[in-house]
């Protein structure tokens, strides 16, 4: 069982992601944010459940929908917002933006805007950990859309052959951009990993405690040199593919969205559990929320007031 302190921490982390993403949406709608953003709202339990089971020196690779993974691995809110706004104080000095935040001090090898593009990086980090004789583990986050990419299968094959400490973490939010995954995915998702002899687990990705417990088990397995595994988390993207994807009825029914938000909101589910188990009361949770909202607001304010990079930085760091 997960102790109550830990559950409260999960709650804080999930809420931090939720409120961060809501703030991102506001910044975008207020034309304060260049480019676009892919919100992680609805999937918070996956990033938090997995990253809470990792050590600080373990690796993750992330996706275009990466803010949640980044925060869950310990990134600072203010530097995240600064990167999203293209400011000099951002994680990548404004050169990466929303889809490329990397935070190597916390083992985050970067979000990746090529779907499935980080399968090699995560698997390579696992090979590196093995060769260097550390017991670090790598988690490769990807969505079910990445199941269409051949690179993933090449890497899973090698990870299985060489027993690499990597967990392939598939977040099935059901939509490859604007297309239901059933239209793009033959056979079963788990069958893909099973073909390589990689153990798989399929779980409800909205239950953070379950994600944490399952991830912990697979991470320990990898740490003990027992090889890779594949964890399929069923989840849902509450917003569109990106912030501008407002009219979604042509590809997914409104009713479906409402049902998920109503019954399978990971933040609500955990709040209910905390109250039901009498760990805290609603008033306490409201206090937590306003505390985190304050952190989010001050992070966003920091970013809004932060300077842009000097124009002369444009050709810096092309080469090391």
């Amino acid at each position, binding site marked *: 069982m997960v102790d109550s302190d830990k559950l409260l921490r999960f709650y804080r982390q999930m809420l931090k992601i939720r409120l961060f993403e809501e703030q991102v949406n506001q910044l975008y709608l207020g034309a304060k944010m260049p480019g676009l953003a892919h919100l992680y709202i609805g999937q918070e339990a996956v990033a938090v459940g997995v990253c809470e089971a990792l050590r600080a020196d373990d690796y993750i690779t992330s996706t275009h929908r990466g803010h949640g993974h980044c925060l869950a691995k310990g990134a600072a809110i203010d530097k995240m917002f600064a990167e999203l706004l293209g400011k000099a104080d951002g*994680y990548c000095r404004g050169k990466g933006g929303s889809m490329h935040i*990397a935070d190597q001090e916390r083992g985050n090898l*970067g979000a990746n805007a*090529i779907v499935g593009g980080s399968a090699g990086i995560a698997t*390579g980090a696992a090979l*590196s950990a093995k*060769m260097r004789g550390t017991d670090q583990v790598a988690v490769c986050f990807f969505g079910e859309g990445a199941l269409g990419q*051949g690179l993933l299968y090449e*890497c899973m094959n*090698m990870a299985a052959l060489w027993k690499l400490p990597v967990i392939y973490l598939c977040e099935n939010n059901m939509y490859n951009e604007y297309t239901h995954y059933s239209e793009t995915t033959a056979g079963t998702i788990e069958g893909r990993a099973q073909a390589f002899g990689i153990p798989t687990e399929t779980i409800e990705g909205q239950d953070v405690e379950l994600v944490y417990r399952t991830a912990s088990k697979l991470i320990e397995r990898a740490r003990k040199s027992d090889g890779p595994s594949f964890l399929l988390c069923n989840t849902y993207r509450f917003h569109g593919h990106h912030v501008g994807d407002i009219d979604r009825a042509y590809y997914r029914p409104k009713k479906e969205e409402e049902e998920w938000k109503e019954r399978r909101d990971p933040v609500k589910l955990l709040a209910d559990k905390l109250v039901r188990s009498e760990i805290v009361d609603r008033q306490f949770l409201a206090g937590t929320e306003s505390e985190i909202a304050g952190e989010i607001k001050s992070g966003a304010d920091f970013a809004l007031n932060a300077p842009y990079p000097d124009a002369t930085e444009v050709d810096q760091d092309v080469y090391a």
Partner: protein
Amino acid sequence: MAKQAQTTAGRAITFAQAINEALAEEMRRDPKVFILGEDVAEAGTPFKVLSGLVKEFGKERVIDSPISEAGIAGICVGAAMTGMRPVVDIMFGDFATLVMDQMVNQAAKTHYMSGGKLTVPMVMRTTLGATRRSAAQHSQSLHAWFSHIPGLKVVLPATPYDAKGLLKTAIRDDNPVVFFEDKMMYQQKGVVPAQDYTIPFGVADVKRAGKDITLVATSSMVEVSLKAAEILQASNISAEVVDVRTTVPLDKETLIASAQKTTRALVVDEGYERYGVTAEIASVIADGAFYYLDAPVKRMGAMDVPVPFSPVLEDQTVPTPESVAETARKLCGKM
């Protein structure tokens, strides 16, 4: 201008042995260096370039992979980002098509996109060159593709001496480096010091001094240009042969200075001529030596056709000593 200082005693070894020696020395020096590729261990690659390395370094550091070019390139990117210095072996340069996302979108951009925090110290060794009767999918010279991408360095050694010194530099470089070896050159011998030395990137080498025309060449075309210079000598044309050695970084100064001196330049390269590296180099020379030039800068690359199989067809597609000499003669106004 860098005259290569071959002061140290060397022995004549093949281009393939020079590559092998560079890898062995670097792997002894630095435990972080390892090799990943198809048939690299016991087979030592189909070209036998890596023969014996697995004996000394074991299968943990000379790793046979499945036939998964994208996967092994990607794994090397991740290993490089986390403290290792991988050398990935991509057997034929034509398979560049399969590794492009990993090299172009991942390896090349990681340092910049991370604001300078992450580095990708990896080497991708691969091959180029036609006339081996290997037809259209095993004969291309695709170094222009990589030279186009900011974040990558591109190395094209033309002699065993350069191959060893440049490969050692590539392995010690903190950036992704694409290292092209001419398949036809593997058995060619040259004098190579037995001890450690490196050759800096971005330093062209004057392989032959001359005063009437500059032949700028890369990789396989250096030897072709040297032979062309011999032919030209018979017509009393003194050709200078400049080997760029690395297209990225490019030693513009040496190229421009040579063209200013000789007043004529012909750029020769085995990549497709259309949009090829010859175009970039010719432009650099035209810009930098314009007021000194007595003729337009000319360029010769591979014919813009898929490389054909039949020898009678294939041999027409690449510049030869004769065709280079003929073009050079025309440029010098002597027919």
